[in-house]
């Protein structure tokens, strides 16, 4: 397995290199001048040009790319045009809220979606199955921000149970940390629950028709044991795959959720950086997201060995 991991990790290098070049070029080709944004509404062209030169944006694109590549190879993602901080420091400041939000979201999603999917498959065609399918359509269809506003209105403004916005570090106490994360995580997990529950239902349905399930039932095993130990265990590979693939969905959702709930994470940093045409920060964050995505896929592939002993690398 170690050679497989090494090969996969080595394969991330060309992936990240291609992402880096594409992002660099796309940012230079899209409209928007960071210097004009920094200068403010009242600046004239001369003032903007001076700021542009100060940022090094008056150089040719190949020269800018060479400088950036040199920095990257030395582990430096550069300095944010907008925040005047090292991009690595900015990412360091913002990574905890995003990781916390993603982790709680995944935990909620898996804890809710997998049992729901299994139960729906077990009661195929029944009211639970139909309700789950209906919920899935709703979960896919309702935009994240609409759901967020509805939850805020009901839970925070009408009932006063949870805060409207903000984030507390786990170091400041577990309860405040959790109180600030519950609503954003529920908001973000809905689409994820819909996705995982549907895939779980389909995968478990497939396995429920297998001979070994009939054998297990014939042996007199309880339905719960049949479902968990035999049906679900054999359906784990597609479920693990969809959880992994859903990370991409999560990255997109984090951007919106963090904006609505004012969580100072990587999602909001991305929005701020894109709006301000903060090239070094956008490049840094996208590289991080790409690396995370590649890594998650690797972990999912490795998890197959755990779920299905027949798989060997």
């Amino acid at each position, binding site marked *: 397995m170690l050679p497989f991991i090494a090969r996969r990790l080595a394969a991330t290098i060309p992936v990240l290199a291609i992402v880096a070049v594409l992002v660099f070029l796309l940012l230079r080709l899209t409209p*928007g001048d960071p210097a004009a944004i920094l200068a403010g509404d009242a600046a004239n062209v001369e003032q903007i040009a001076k700021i542009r030169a100060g940022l090094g944006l008056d150089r040719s694109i190949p020269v800018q790319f060479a400088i950036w590549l040199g920095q990257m190879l030395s582990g430096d993602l550069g300095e944010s045009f907008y925040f005047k901080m090292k991009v690595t420091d900015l990412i360091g400041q913002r990574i905890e809220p995003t990781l916390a939000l993603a982790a709680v979201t995944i935990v909620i999603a898996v804890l809710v979606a997998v049992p729901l999917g299994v139960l729906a498959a077990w009661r195929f065609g029944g009211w639970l199955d139909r309700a789950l399918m209906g919920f899935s359509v709703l979960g896919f269809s309702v935009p994240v921000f609409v759901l967020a506003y509805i939850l805020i209105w009901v839970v925070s403004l009408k009932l006063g149970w949870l805060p409207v916005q903000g984030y507390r570090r786990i170091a400041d106490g577990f309860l405040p940390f959790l109180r600030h994360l519950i609503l954003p995580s529920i908001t973000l997990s809905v689409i994820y629950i819909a996705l995982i529950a549907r895939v779980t239902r389909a995968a478990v349905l497939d396995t429920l028709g297998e001979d070994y399930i009939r054998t297990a039932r014939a042996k007199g095993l309880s339905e719960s044991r049949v479902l968990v130990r035999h049906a679900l265990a054999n359906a784990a590979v597609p479920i693990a795959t969809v959880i992994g693939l859903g990370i991409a969905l999560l990255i997109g959702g984090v951007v919106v959720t963090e904006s609505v709930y004012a969580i100072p994470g990587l999602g909001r940093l991305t929005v701020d950086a894109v709006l301000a045409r903060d090239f070094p920060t956008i490049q840094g964050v996208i590289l991080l997201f790409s690396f995370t995505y590649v890594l998650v896929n690797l972990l999912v592939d490795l998890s197959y060995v755990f779920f299905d002993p027949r798989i060997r690398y």
Partner: protein
Amino acid sequence: MRRVVAVLALAIAAGGAWGQKTIRIAPQSNLAVLDPHFTTATVTRTHGYMVYDTLFGTDANSRVQPQMVDKWAVTGDRRTWTFTLREGLEFHDGQPVTSEDVIASLERWSKKDSLGQRLAAAAERWEAVDARTFRLVLREPFGMVLEALGKPGANVPFILPKRIAATSADKQIEDPTGSGPYIFKRDEWKPGSLVVYAKNPKYRPRAEPPSGTAGGKRVFVDRVEWQILRDAQTQVNALVAGEIDLVEQPAHEHYPALRRNPDIVVHDNKAGAQVVLRFNHLHPPFNDARIRRAALVALSPEPFLKAQYVSPDLYRVCASLYACGTPYETRGGMEGLLRGDIRRARALLKEAGYDGTPVVILQPTDLATIAKLPTVAAQQLRQAGFKVDLQSMDWNALLSRRAKKDPPSKGGWSIFMTTLNGLDVANPVVSLPMNASCDKAWPGWPCDPVLEKLRLDFLHAATEQDRKKVAEAAQRRALEIGTHAALGEYFQPVATRKNITGLLDAPVYVYWNLDKK
């Protein structure tokens, strides 16, 4: 008992901010640039007023009043001005504020600010007489010395320590040491999320009551926190839930609900922001003054304001290029303009030989306060016979696009719209769109020596009456050549929790005098 004491001690140690009075504010945008000389961004200006002090302030009646200055004198020929600083002024690092600091700051500021540039051009030299006294020697009398030094709008002549003011004006300063009523807490700053200011315990406010940016800057709270809430709905939700105390710029559609909420106070702001439509003077069709005039004849302000700001108590129309209700407001030169006279506009267009060149209007879809205005402009101009190409983009793309001098067909533009603080259109010298100095002018680049001469005359006018005459002449000239259209003003009330008191009615955001009951 020992356990109780231990718990209390722990609690005190853990909660350094226990018992502190903190006001939480949602500012109009994120604070990214800390250097108020470097940018004209509103949020940076507000940061400047927190951290720095000024030699003079402008009170609520638009009169310049001393702030850091104790006394000043001017010679009979009005060429030598001598200023003395108040005693005991100190920077946050404990160093006294000296004449050297003031001179270095003003020199840096004058490289960026248009009025500062004019002052610098008229100045022979600044000289430090002693630690607290300095002198400005002019080549020729300059009619707006105090107005320049007490200028409330960006770029504000804030005073920095000399060691920081020595930084090139084109490079952002990173050390926010000032001598103002608050201290910037760099260690607590989370860019894009949280900005923290602590009360400056050594600040010595003036004895006079606060008024505008003048008077005593008294601080009644320990901390002010700016929570950067990007989403307009989240700002209002957080205010209603009591998680923040003040929203600087609630979205206009939220005012009715906020006014109905018994826990919220909506503070009407008397200072308006002017809606401006800017022509690009470099390229067809608006490189022809007759066609610009035809557009001015076609435009009608009321539909713009109604479409964008909805409620009549949030806007007003005044036919003047200067801010409504200010000393230089005049109707001079407005005859027949901005009345939506489509028939006459069509005739003027025909007379000018308009050949159907498309008018490229830039529309910032993400800026809620102006997003609808370009649509109205497009409709009114189409009715008059213009061929219009309305192009949507985000505000920051617009800022970049409008700085391009290329023809509209090659990535340039014909019209953009924005709003300008009343302070920035208070007279012909500070007015950005009336600057007709060609390449050095605001995007649109009008080039007119006559208007430039009038702007200079305004600076040298000896009396207020003379200034008014020159201001009117400048407006007439600006309308004759069609620099831009001023389409009225809108108001941006501030919303606070009802336990917040002392919010000052100033043309800029200032947060001294606030208290939380």
